[in-house]
Each structure stands twice: as structure tokens, then as C-alpha cells.
């Protein structure tokens, strides 16, 4: 069997090759090498999974990284069924997006030196390598390395068109907001180490009882630790209160939005929570808070998505909203369902983003949905794939999103019954249902606004403004279908968006085992702590409601998009939970004042001391140099006086 580290090493090799030599290669070659490396990593992962990831995980120690006394961290990898699912998503969808990017990035008008194309792919490869490290790590510290690495790549890629101010600002914002979350993750990690003396998953989970004893127990034990970990997850996965960076991150190229800010990196927080399920199970309070945060984020982001007319912003808020669903699932203890939603969401959201990219590409950089419409006839493949994945996002039966979303809502209600806190969880579940309806409405609305109705792109000759993604073809607005290198990934993803849900068919009586294979596949990972949730029975009433909501919302939204094609559903101020404003008025202003105070101290006190020393030395030198008269006899006199003084000293003592 091929070693696991190849999955990380291959994209890393691609990063080095395209990074160092890509600029000198013909353009498609750099893209092909990068895609090939990720494809090869996918094959390695797939071989492992097909070779049968046993119920006991494959673990592989590469080398010892740190050893200080009892503290030992190995660079060792772990492939159990949970990381297997994630690594297949990361490398598989990553590969498709790489292939798509070969076509999408080919006409980048910001690429004046001709070197950026290769740089884009080297960043993407580096991202895949770090993401694979994050997923495959077998201890928290190594996961943290990958965690920070993907954050770094996210920064690079959001700010890929760094000459655009919004992109540069957005990349900084993403990095800084994530830093807050990482701070929580780091503190959580330190507390775990303090309590258990190890960061290795197995060792930590085996000693989960010790978290509530001793110093750490006094501080807050498992609840505090999981809250800190959840803060980290909220940063990476864009949850309230740290979601604000994700919508801005749309300033990056669209494939980046698809790969990093929809399918993979933002789900790292969910993965981390699922990985730490043992800890979260020991902290019911955290789970409740997490579920609430997820529900609130899902609802507010869904409402905000209705207020936007930028095709990518709608998808961005939709991503935040769907991540909220995943957090609800984690909060309900339904980790398998959370990962299932990660899995289905990766397909349809990547497909939606890439479809949006295809539209933007076709319209020469236009991102405003008010200036789209009527594209269905022009772009048949994009239209079809966008519609199918849109239906999946809307949760229309029988597409992928329906199954995963319904499972989540079902498990939230079920968690309330199990925990005896029915009321609160029932509220969260109802919010989930409401959000599912909103999701279906904005998705249907977006689809019809972009693809149906009258074409509004002819009227707009002055498009492709600063927000443009791809600046070619400013002059001619003649939408055309994208090349095959872009449409084939769309088709594959759309197939996933249609059929991925069948892996997790609801657990109804009479449905064969094989149809909820996803849950059975993951069950061994989570078996020890909460077998009861894995076996939770689907609720037929909920399924019916979900089906009605999905299709009803979609059809209603479709009609809305046709009726108010020239506007948003409501102004942004109506719905946005304006955390940006709140942060600006509090944290940013406070930080600014603090910075000004420190600046004053620096300029006046610190610089005063430094300059004072300089002036002192300079002035004493100025007066001392007067003794250099150039008259030999002066020097001789000085010597004589000195000699006389020495003599006097010896004679008197």
C-alpha cells in the first residue's frame, strides 16, 4: 500500500514545481502539473479507501517532530473513516476545481507579467497539501499546522488580485478574524495538554475524564476546552461572531471561493468538532451553545443572502448559512450528519460557485445578478448544472441537500428529546426549518434571476467594474458557453449534487441498509460515545415538511426572481446582522485609539530616549574634539602633565 504521506507530499511537490518553474512553462502546463498532483493524491487516498479503511484506523508515523521531556509530538498521520471522507472531498473536489481553473484563469487581465497563472496553481497546491495535513493529522498540534497553513493559503488567494483594494483588504480581514479563532483553538489545545499531557487524539480521548479534574477542571474542564475549540471552529467555519470575513473573501478568484470558501477549508471547523466528538460529548453546555450559534448563523446568513444581488455574495452567505446547519448538527451530537452535510454541500456548493464563475466568465466579469437573466439558452451546460446543484442546495427532494439538511433538522429535534431540553432544541429545529425555506427561496430566486427571464446584459455596456473577476471581453457582451475544461468539472459536480444524497437515505422502515451507507461507514468512528444517534429513526412528518419546503421555496423563489429581477429581495440593512459595523465601532475604534496612544508613547518617550542618547554623545564629542589642536607641543604637554601626575601619585602614596 502506498504511504499516506504521499497524499500531502504530492501537492507539496506540485507547489514547489509550479512555484519555482511555473512562470517559465507554457500556461496550461503549470495548471496540468498542479491538477495532476492533486489527482494523484486523490488516487492514493482512493486506493486506501477502496483497499478498505478498517474500522481500526490506519496510522502512520513519519517522524518525531518535537520531544521535550514528556511532551512528544509525532508527525504521524491517521486515516480512519472520518478522515477518509474528508480527504476524498478535499482531493477529489480539489482536483475538479484545479481542472476548472485551467480554463478559468487563462484570461486573467491582471496577469501582466504572465507569472500569476503558475502562482495561482502553486497556491492552490499548497492549500491542498495543508488541508490534507489538517485532515490526516493524528494530533491536535499537527492539525493546527495544517489549520494555519490553509489560513495562509486562503490569505494568499483572497488577495490574489492584490492591486484591487477590496481584495487586499479582504485578505487581511480573513487572516485577522481567523487569528481570533486560532487563539481559542490554541488555548483549548494548551488546556488539553495541561490536563492530559498529550495532544494525540487517541490519548486525549482515552483520558477525557481527566479534563474535569485538577487545575483544568477548576477552570472549567471539558466545557471550557470545547468552547475554546468551538471558537476556533467558528473562526475557520465563519460562524457568528466571526463570520464577517467570509462574504468579503469573495474578492478572490471564483475557483478559490469554490474550493476554499465553500467546499473544503471552511468545513475544517466542522471536521475539528467531529474529530473532537469525545470532548464535545463530555460538555453538553457547549453543544447547546454550538447548536444555538449554528441556528442563529444559519438564519441570519440566509436572510442576508436574500438581500444581495451579487451572484457570489449570495452564495457566500448561503455557505455561511449551510455551515450554520453543520454546527447545528454538531451541537445536536449528530456528527455523522454534520459530516454528511459537509460531503453533500461540497458537491453542490462547489458546483454553484463554479457555475457562477462560468457565468461571470461569460459576461466578461459581471457579477451583478440584476444585469444577468436569460442565460439559459446561451449556456446550456452551466444552466443545467447550476439548476441541479441549486435544487440540491434548496433541499428539493430527491437531490443531495434534501437528505443531509433534513437529517440535521431531524437530529436537532431528536437531540432535544434525548437531552430532555426539548424546548430549546425544538426552537433550534424550527429555526432550521425556517432557514431551509429561506434557503430554497433565495436559491430559486438566484437561479431565475441569472438564467431565466429576459436578458438584461445587453443594456449594460459599462460592466466589468472593479469588482470584476475576469476582465476580458469588456467590449463585447456576447455570452458564450465555457470551454469543456470548465464544463466537465461542472457536470461531474452536478452528478454528485444529484446522487450524493442517496448515500445517506433516511432511515425509514423498509429501506435497505445499503441506502444509508454513509452513516454506516462513519458509525465505527463515533460508535463508542453515542451509538444512539447513529441509529436515530427518520421522522416521516419532517421528511414531508422538508420536501414541501424545498420544492415550494424553490418555485416561490423562482417566481420572485422573475418578478423583481432588477432588485434585491430587500435592502441589505433590513437583514444583515451588521456585525461589521459593531466591530468597527467597538473593537476597531478601540484598537485604533490604543494604537494612537502607543504611537504617541513611541514617538515621544521611546524616541526621546533614543534621540537623547544620540544628542548627548554628539554634543560631548563636539566639545571634546576641540582638544585636537594639531599642535604637537600641545600633545607633548598633555603627555608631560600626565607623566607628572603619575609621578606625583607614586611619590605621594
Amino acid at each position, binding site marked *: 500500500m502506498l504511504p499516506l504521506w504521499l497524499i500531502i507530499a504530492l501537492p507539496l511537490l506540485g507547489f514547489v514545481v509550479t512555484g519555482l518553474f511555473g512562470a517559465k512553462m507554457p500556461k496550461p502546463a503549470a495548471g496540468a502539473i498542479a491538477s495532476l498532483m492533486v489527482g494523484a493524491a486523490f488516487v492514493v487516498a482512493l486506493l486506501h479507501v477502496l483497499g478498505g479503511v478498517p474500522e481500526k484506523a490506519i496510522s502512520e508515523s513519519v517522524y518525531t517532530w518535537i520531544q521535550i521531556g514528556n511532551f512528544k509530538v509525532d508527525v504521524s498521520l491517521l486515516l480512519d473513516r472520518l478522515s477518509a471522507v474528508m480527504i476524498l472531498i478535499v482531493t477529489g473536489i480539489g482536483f475538479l476545481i484545479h481542472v476548472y481553473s485551467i480554463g478559468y484563469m487563462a484570461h486573467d487581465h491582471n496577469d501582466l507579467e504572465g507569472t500569476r497563472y503558475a502562482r495561482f496553481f502553486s497556491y492552490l497546491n499548497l492549500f491542498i497539501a495543508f488541508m490534507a495535513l489538517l485532515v490526516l493529522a493524528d494530533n491536535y498540534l499537527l492539525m493546527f499546522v495544517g489549520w494555519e497553513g490553509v489560513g495562509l493559503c486562503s490569505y494568499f488567494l483572497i488577495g490574489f488580485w492584490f492591486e484591487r483594494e477590496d481584495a487586499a483588504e479582504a485578505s487581511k480581514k480573513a487572516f485577522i478574524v481567523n487569528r481570533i479563532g486560532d487563539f481559542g483553538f490554541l488555548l483549548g489545545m494548551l488546556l488539553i495538554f495541561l490536563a492530559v499531557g498529550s495532544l494525540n487524539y487517541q490519548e486525549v480521548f482515552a483520558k477525557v475524564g481527566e479534563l474535569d479534574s485538577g487545575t483544568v477542571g477548576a477552570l472549567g474542564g471539558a466545557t471550557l476546552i470545547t468552547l475554546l475549540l468551538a471558537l476556533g471552529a467558528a473562526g475557520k467555519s465563519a460562524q457568528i461572531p466571526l463570520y464577517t470575513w467570509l462574504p468579503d473573501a469573495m474578492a478572490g478568484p471564483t475557483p478559490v471561493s469554490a474550493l476554499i470558501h465553500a467546499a473544503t477549508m471552511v468545513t475544517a471547523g466542522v471536521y475539528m468538532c467531529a474529530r473532537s466528538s469525545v470532548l464535545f460529548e463530555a460538555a453538553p453546555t457547549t453543544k447547546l451553545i454550538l447548536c444555538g450559534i449554528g441556528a442563529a448563523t444559519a438564519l441570519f446568513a440566509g436572510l442576508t443572502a436574500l438581500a444581495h444581488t451579487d451572484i457570489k455574495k449570495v452564495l457566500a452567505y448561503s455557505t455561511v448559512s449551510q455551515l450554520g446547519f453543520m454546527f447545528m448538527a454538531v451541537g445536536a451530537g449528530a456528527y455523522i450528519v454534520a459530516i454528511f452535510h459537509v460531503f453533500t454541500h461540497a458537491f453542490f456548493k462547489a458546483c454553484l460557485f463554479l457555475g457562477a464563475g462560468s457565468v461571470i466568465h461569460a459576461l466578461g466579469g459581471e457579477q451583478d445578478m440584476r444585469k444577468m437573466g436569460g442565460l439559459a439558452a446561451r449556456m446550456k451546460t452551466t444552466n443545467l448544472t447550476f439548476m441541479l446543484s441549486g435544487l440540491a442546495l434548496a433541499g428539493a427532494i430527491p437531490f443531495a441537500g434534501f437528505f443531509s439538511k433534513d437529517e440535521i433538522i431531524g437530529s436537532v429535534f431528536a437531540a432535544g428529546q434525548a437531552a430532555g431540553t426539548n424546548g430549546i432544541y425544538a426552537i433550534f429545529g424550527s429555526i432550521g426549518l425556517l432557514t431551509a425555506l429561506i434557503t430554497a427561496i433565495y436559491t430559486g430566486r438566484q437561479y431565475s434571476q441569472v438564467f431565466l427571464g429576459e436578458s438584461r446584459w445587453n443594456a449594460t455596456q459599462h460592466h466589468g467594474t472593479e469588482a470584476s473577476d475576469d476582465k476580458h471581453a469588456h467590449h463585447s457582451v456576447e455570452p458564450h458557453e465555457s470551454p469543456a475544461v470548465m464544463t466537465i468539472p461542472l457536470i461531474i459536480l452536478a452528478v454528485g449534487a444529484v446522487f450524493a444524497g442517496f448515500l445517506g437515505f433516511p432511515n425509514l422502515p423498509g429501506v435497505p441498509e445499503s441506502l444509508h451507507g454513509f452513516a454506516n461507514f462513519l458509525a465505527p468512528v463515533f460508535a463508542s460515545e453515542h451509538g444512539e444517534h447513529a441509529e436515530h429513526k427518520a421522522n416521516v412528518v419532517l421528511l414531508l415538511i422538508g420536501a414541501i419546503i424545498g420544492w415550494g421555496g424553490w418555485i416561490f423563489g423562482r417566481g420572485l426572481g422573475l418578478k423583481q429581477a432588477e432588485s434585491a429581495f430587500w435592502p441589505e440593512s433590513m437583514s444583515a446582522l451588521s456585525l461589521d459595523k459593531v466591530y468597527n465601532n467597538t473593537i476597531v475604534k478601540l484598537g485604533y485609539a490604543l494604537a494612537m496612544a502607543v504611537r504617541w508613547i513611541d514617538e515621544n518617550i521611546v524616541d526621546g530616549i533614543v534621540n537623547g542618547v544620540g544628542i548627548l554623545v554628539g554634543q560631548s564629542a563636539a566639545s571634546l574634539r576641540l582638544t585636537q589642536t*594639531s599642535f604637537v*607641543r600641545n600633545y607633548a604637554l598633555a603627555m*608631560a602633565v600626565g607623566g607628572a601626575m603619575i609621578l606625583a601619585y607614586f611619590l605621594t602614596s
Partner: protein
Amino acid sequence: MPTHYYLAISAALFTIGVMGVLLRRNAIVIFMCIELMLNAANLAFVATARHFALAGNIDPARAMSGQVFVFFVMTVAAAEVAVGLAIIVALFRNRSSIDVDDVNLLKY
């Protein structure tokens, strides 16, 4: 003659030498004054050597070291004169003067 007579002359010669170096501007005269100081030291050496030899309370061989040291001083003085005069010649060629106050470039 008692030894302190010689020492007094030695001190007088040394003082004259010091004053000459400090007060005169002619490089050659300064040079001669340096020689004067060296020879004052020589006189002190031989005088004290003789003093200790006559007193007989010291090993005669050690008492002779003062006499011998004078030769070293003379050798050093000769070498110094060779170097010093060469400097004065070079100075004269550059400045057409051997006044030390004319050499005054190295100042503030």
C-alpha cells in the same frame, strides 16, 4: 663625589630637555632635547650603578646592569635618530620648513 650630585645634574638635564620639547618649535632642536632627556636618564643609570657598586651591599654583577643598560639606551637613541631625522627630511621636502607648528592638518 656623592651620588646625589650626579642625580641633581641628571634631573636638571631632564627638565631642560622636557622644557625644550614643550617650548621649542624647531624640530631638530626638539630632537636634541629628546637626546638630552635620554642622556639625563643615562647619567642617572651610571651614577646609581656606581653608587650601589661602591656601597658593596649588592651583588657587583647586578650593580653592573645599570652600566650595561646605558648601552641599550644609546642603541635605541641611535636608531631613533635615524628614523627621526628621516621624518624631518621628509617634512622639510614637503613643507620647506621644519617648524612643528606648520604641521597642523590633523585637527578638529
